[in-house]
């Protein structure tokens, strides 16, 4: 357990006045308040640290104790006992610092020095909402499937419907932080991130695919087999197909979220591959073709 320099956390000197401490706390609290930083996982942690830091210098008795024992805080209880015995003053132990918050809101260092909680009064509130991200391979996101997640030590089984969008959020009620003052637990928000696929790119419910075809198929027409999420599909290539030609395969895209049987489209872009390492005979034939083309124009 490490010593925490609360003055440093608040960015004030050890001699700071009450007003300076209040000002520093308010500025940092505004900056890191979880409700003002909805997608910032660090904000909640930082906000707790600032609140804990504020508990000490803003309370004269805690500040005195903290300043007096500093890094020797681990022996503070013995020092205090000795002091009280010398002064023959009964009672008044620091158990009275057990406050309204649960101890889990404070660091081990804080609870060791001051007891289970802070002294600041706060009404009953729902716990903080947690944010989490779940990465899904594109092909997994295309199918309704179950996943078991471990959240704060609890196993939660969720069903992820096919077609979940990149950046989509779902709420798991009651899986967030514990409530304060008997308030209900917060919620857990899961944001899905769909990962790139080596073959398909997804935009909304449509998929995009680049299909290589050889020069001769592009010139003379023919067939090519393209991969779709539903399996391979044979496509007819029209004669004299240009490089970059786009073909739409209706209903071969991504399934629509919570709309069973409905899917987006697949756009196939042809990329024409030129033959390499031509033999002298092949080169001569291409030259003949080029000459014929020149005569035509």
């Amino acid at each position, binding site marked *: 357990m490490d010593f925490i320099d609360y003055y440093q956390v608040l960015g004030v000197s050890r001699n700071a006045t009450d007003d300076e401490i209040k000002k520093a706390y308010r500025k940092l*609290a505004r900056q890191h308040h979880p*409700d003002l930083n*909805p997608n910032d996982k660090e904000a909640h942690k930082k906000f707790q640290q600032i609140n804990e830091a504020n508990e000490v210098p803003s309370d004269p008795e805690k500040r005195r104790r903290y300043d007096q024992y500093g890094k020797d805080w681990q022996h503070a209880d013995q020092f205090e006992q000795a002091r009280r015995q010398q002064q023959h003053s009964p009672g008044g132990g620091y158990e009275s610092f057990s406050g309204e918050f649960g101890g889990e809101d404070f660091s081990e260092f804080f609870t060791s020095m001051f007891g289970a909680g802070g002294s600041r009064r706060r009404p*009953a509130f*729902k716990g903080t909402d947690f944010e989490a991200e779940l990465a899904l391979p594109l092909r997994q996101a295309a199918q309704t499937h179950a996943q078991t997640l471990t959240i704060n030590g609890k196993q939660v089984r969720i069903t992820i419907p096919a077609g979940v969008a990149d950046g989509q959020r779902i709420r798991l009620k009651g899986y967030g932080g514990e409530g304060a003052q008997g308030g209900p637990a917060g919620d857990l928000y899961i944001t899905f991130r769909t990962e790139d696929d080596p073959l398909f790119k997804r935009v909304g419910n449509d998929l995009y695919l680049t299909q290589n075809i050889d020069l001769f198929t592009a010139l003379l027409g023919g067939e090519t087999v393209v991969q779709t999420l539903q399996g391979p599909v044979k496509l007819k290539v029209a004669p004299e197909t240009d490089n970059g030609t786009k073909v739409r395969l209706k209903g071969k895209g991504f399934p629509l979220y919570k709309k069973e049987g409905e899917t987006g489209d697949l756009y196939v872009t042809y990329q024409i591959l030129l033959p390499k390492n031509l033999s002298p005979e092949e080169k001569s034939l291409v030259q003949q073709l080029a000459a014929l083309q020149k005569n035509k124009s």
Partner: protein
Amino acid sequence: MIQLTIVQFCEHYGVAPQFIEALVEYGLVEAPVAGQTVQVHDHQWPQVERWLRLHHDLHINIAGLEAVEQVLQRLEQLQQENQQLRSRLRLYETD
């Protein structure tokens, strides 16, 4: 929908009745105050609690909360736009 008396509501959250009335007046919560009761839809509780936390923790008054609401809405909109643009940009990225 949960119907609470204003007294119950304010005791539960430790706020003055005027604060709830002001939230409704500024349109930050769609909770009709009928006589001595306040009616809050289930889906609105997280929002009410968010305003109360901001008011309590940061001493933000109602006008400030209204400004925060607008900025947060704009932030969410920009985040969504950013997400869509990233998704489109990936189309042009070479693997």
